[in-house]
């Protein structure tokens, strides 16, 4: 007997269609333009820990292939549209991440990403809140800085500890054989292994002001204490990472520097070197409007709204049946 049957029930797929309709209606009301940027790109995401699928494009069958990469997020292309004057835009579609497979991961998944010119991270959090509240039946969502979150659940502030202390603290909670001199590796372990399980008892929380070293494509600004933090936030629902947003970096020189820093880190970790998207840098040089943007996992939103225990239960066919 083959496993031809779907991994989701028809009832869940009906909820899925209703969620898509709700999301499109939400943005239509806000006059945010729907776009669909290419799924295949000549460049790949720079993040060292996000792996792209490679494709071979052949102008003639079987010969002269050219590498393309499946998008891991529509971020670069959407920013090029913003720089071209699109105004507020959203995209809901499939993105692809190689190797990501588990209860909350499927190598292809549906991402909702949107950008609001003129917004900062705080204003965009208001909008994320407005979108998810009716779906999840939530009241207002608490906002806690990354530093306060660590203080609350682990009793220390990441910016106040040395690497050795951080490693010792992590090993108290996590049984792992690992040598790594990047503090962010240890912070991520503590967040995913110690804090997230405790957030499972918290309906919803925005974590804000990430360490500057984890800015990704967010602006870095000074917080009230005069320390550099990333204008980045994440939304956790019952301990599940649901959305990641930035007050977007608009400085093209800094953008180019970060792309090259990612490439260098890939090199030192022995990860594949892939073409960096210089078109993104050029778009920023031409002028990306001051804006905030966020990406949200739609499958996870449906998991949370329908009490599913695995992502397979909310998508028609998980990758083992695809």
């Amino acid at each position, binding site marked *: 007997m083959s496993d031809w049957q779907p991994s989701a029930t028809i009832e869940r797929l009906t909820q899925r269609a209703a969620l898509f309709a709700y999301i499109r209606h939400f943005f239509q009301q806000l006059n945010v333009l729907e776009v669909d940027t290419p799924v295949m790109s000549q460049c790949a995401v720079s*993040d060292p*820990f*996000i792996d792209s699928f490679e494709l071979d494009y052949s102008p003639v069958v079987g010969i002269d292939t050219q590498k393309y990469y499946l998008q891991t997020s529509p971020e670069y292309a959407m920013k090029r549209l913003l720089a071209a004057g699109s105004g507020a835009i959203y995209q809901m579609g499939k993105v692809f991440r190689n*190797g*990501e*497979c*588990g*209860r*909350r*991961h499927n190598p292809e998944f549906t991402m909702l990403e949107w950008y609001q010119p003129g917004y900062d991270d705080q204003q965009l959090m208001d909008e994320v809140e407005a979108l998810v509240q009716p779906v999840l039946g939530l009241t207002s969502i608490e906002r806690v800085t990354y530093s306060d979150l660590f203080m609350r659940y682990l009793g220390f502030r990441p910016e106040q500890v040395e690497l050795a202390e951080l490693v010792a603290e992590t090993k108290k909670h*996590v*049984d*792992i*054989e*690992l040598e790594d001199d990047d503090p*962010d*590796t240890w912070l*991520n*372990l503590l*967040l*995913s*292994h110690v804090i997230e399980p405790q957030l499972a008892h918290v309906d919803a929380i925005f974590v804000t002001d990430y360490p500057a070293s*984890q800015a*990704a494509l967010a602006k870095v600004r000074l917080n009230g204490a005069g320390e550099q933090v990333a204008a980045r936030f*994440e939304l956790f629902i019952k301990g599940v*990472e649901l959305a*990641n947003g930035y007050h977007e970096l608009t400085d093209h020189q800094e953008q180019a520097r970060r792309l090259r820093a990612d490439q260098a880190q890939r090199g030192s970790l022995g990860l594949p070197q892939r073409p960096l998207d210089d078109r993104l840098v050029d778009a920023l040089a031409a002028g990306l409007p001051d804006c905030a943007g966020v990406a949200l996992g739609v499958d996870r939103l449906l998991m949370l709204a329908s009490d599913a225990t695995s992502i397979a239960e909310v998508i028609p066919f998980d990758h083992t049946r695809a």
Partner: protein
Amino acid sequence: MANFSSNQFKNGMKVMIDGDPCSMVDVEFVKPGKGQAFTRVKLRNLMSGRIWERTFKSGESVEAADVMDTTMEYSYYDGELWYFMDPNTFEQVGADENAVSDAKPWLKEQDSVTVTLFNGNPIAVMPANFVELEVVETDPGLKGDTAQGGSKPATLATGAIVRVPLFINQGEVLKIDTRTGEYVSRA
């Protein structure tokens, strides 16, 4: 011995950790959107029974444990060890208290069980999902009460005590689910 890479990990896989054979009870892929991927595994040490969580780097590999599950018949208890026989070779192995702890309440002579061997030594014994055991002691059955609720304790031939319906009598043979320790039906 073969190695398993973290991307092959799955429930039930037997691996060597710090010199002891361990079984994977739960395997979870952990990856923050922007961070490194890890595999968090709940492990049970098959020697000590200890259950704990260990985290592996993506691509990290561990040695497979030379562990084999075999079907054997329970023979007897000599006051120290429980003896099991391979029905094909008639070879016998003796298992200690620690290895039989989960199976002990359900061990009846000549019943088939699954014995986990590590380097030829029994380290765990699993009873069949269902066993049939005689009631050696219980309050007298209530006549006519065949369907209504209500239960009472009954001691079985192995010494295990289970809740049974009121109509069950001493001397009857019952079918028990060893995974839950619950009465299923008359045998």
